[in-house]
């Protein structure tokens, strides 16, 4: 029989991994379509948490309403982000410039600049300390489950993530919008030639990805009871790591790697202090890059 302590750590790691997965999907969707890294994704997560917080303190609505409002806000943020930081740099639509380095670098820097403005703006408005949350909304009431104690947040996060992932998978494979996203990510120019509105598809992708990021933000905020302007940085990097490990353009790969990261961090904290647990993620990343440069689940890429 396994020591219940390890089961406990596994449960913690799993819910952490699910959060990383929600973030990683947004990264991967956007990377798949535009071939660029969206550095502002962590700030979408933070902003999602803050929108939820403001909404809770203003109206005190039920939990599900908060979640839906945050998701809607996340979608709006995605659209806005695309308009501000990505659209102005997509002046040309031929394939060479869509995949070109100049575009990639400039959007990378512009999303970074937007993320700095968002984070510093939040710090200016709210201060850098943690915000206080109404106690009723925290999702950390314990549930005894045999030898393991989990909290309601674990269940909620897991359920929400499962619904979102299932919905996304359904959308990507069964609906016209999802097919358009996959077409654009496979071949932007070809998609344009067969009559797909690439601009709209890209906006849809941003809305979807940011929705998941913002949802993850408010869930984590309520789970830990900690909402502060810099909260998006570490999950953002972990999600980035998961995306690279999963092979950059594979959503299932990113999800599996995110879960793997969460679990290994959860287990690592039993052996080493939690300060060093971050090393596990970075170590994984380096090892993956050196030995499996295409990612663990990536399709064959030309060069890495």
């Amino acid at each position, binding site marked *: 029989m396994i020591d219940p302590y390890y089961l406990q750590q596994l449960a913690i790691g799993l819910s952490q991994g699910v959060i990383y997965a929600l973030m990683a999907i947004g990264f991967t969707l956007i990377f798949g379509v535009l071939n660029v890294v969206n550095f502002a994704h962590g700030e979408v997560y933070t902003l999602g948490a803050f929108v939820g917080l403001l909404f809770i303190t203003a109206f005190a609505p039920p939990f599900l309403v908060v979640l839906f409002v945050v998701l809607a806000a996340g979608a709006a943020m995605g659209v806005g982000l695309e308009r501000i930081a990505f659209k102005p740099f997509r002046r040309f639509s031929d394939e060479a410039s869509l995949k070109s380095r*100049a575009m990639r670098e*400039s959007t990378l820097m*512009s999303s970074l*600049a937007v*993320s700095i403005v968002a984070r510093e703006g939040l710090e200016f408005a709210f201060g850098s300390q943690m915000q206080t949350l109404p106690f009723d909304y925290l999702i950390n009431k314990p549930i005894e489950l045999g030898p393991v104690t989990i909290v309601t947040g674990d269940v909620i996060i897991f359920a929400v993530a499962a619904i979102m992932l299932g919905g996304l998978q359904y959308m990507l494979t069964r609906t016209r919008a999802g097919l358009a996203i996959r077409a654009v990510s496979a071949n932007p120019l070809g998609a344009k030639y067969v009559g797909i509105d690439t601009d709209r598809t890209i906006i849809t992708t941003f809305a979807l990805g940011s929705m998941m990021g913002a949802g993850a933000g408010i869930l984590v905020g309520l789970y830990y009871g900690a909402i502060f302007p810099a909260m998006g940085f570490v999950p953002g990097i972990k999600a980035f790591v998961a995306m690279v490990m999963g092979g950059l353009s594979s959503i299932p790969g990113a999800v599996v790697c995110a879960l793997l990261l969460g679990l290994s961090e959860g287990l690592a904290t039993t052996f080493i202090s939690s300060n060093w647990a971050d090393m596990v993620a970075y170590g994984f990343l*380096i090892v993956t*890059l050196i030995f499996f440069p295409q990612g663990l689940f990536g399709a064959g890429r030309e060069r*890495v």
Partner: protein
Amino acid sequence: MSDFARKGWIGKILVLLLVFGLVPAALAFAGKGYFFQVANLVLIFALLAASLHLVTGAAGLLHLGHAAFYGIGAYVAALMGTDLKLGFIWGLPAAGLVAAAFAFVVALPTMRLVSIYFAVATLAIGQMINTVLLNWVAVTKGPNGVMLFSGINLFGFALKAPLAVYFVVAVLVSLSIFVLHRLSHSYYGNALRSLREDDQCADAMGVNTVRLKIEVFTISAFFAGVAGALWAYTTGYVSPNDFGFSTSILILAMIVVGGLGSLPGAIIGAVVLILLPELLRGLGDLRNVMVGLVMFFSILFMPKGLFGEVSALSLVRRGFGLKWGAAPSNREVGWQ
């Protein structure tokens, strides 16, 4: 135009006059320690941006962990100064060499990666080094940082006056930037640019790309380490927070705002991004927002930066005279 002006000497002399004459005079006139600190900071970040320019601007490798090597240099200098009682004379070269050695070891496995994979690898390396600085309490004192009281001691002369410290920093930074300038504006620099434009083609032409990448990464880390030592000795305090991801991004922003691929651009970018928050001090906490906005609008409206590579190279080409031949100067050189 006379030969003298054509070789770009006027600009260089003006810059040297500014750094060694005008600024110290103004500083001595103002006489406040705070201004000296800002001036030293500008110089140190100019060196950091110039060293990153070699990797990211010239060789086209997106490096997201530069601050970590800067941090290694600062910690080596500070720890040698406090624990081993070895002063500035030993600390400065040691800081550069240790950072370079680290970079060399790290570079061996990662330098075969290209584009975004390289960027991610350097990001992870930077974060790992920062985690070690933060958590290896036995050596680095952890989040408390290291205090360094000894000050700069040059061959028995203890330099206490802020003006003297400024001159030491200015001389060292100018020498380092001169070396970086020679590296980037020479046939070696052209080899680096060939790496950036098309590394497969460069490989086919007989350029040893992997070796070149390792070399340039190591050289750049050496100068980052030197900058770290200067930082440790001018502020007297190092803490892990100064060497995190945001510092790496700040340095990257400097070379992007100044003009990717141009050494003068990198230095101008450093000056702008360090002085701007100080000038905007009146805005209080909003000044960091302003930095982000400046970055955003400079990318949007000046994609080539304040002082782009084309103008920088044509300046140097004039300096080289006929040696570089009559290459058409209106050809686009840059990040394709």
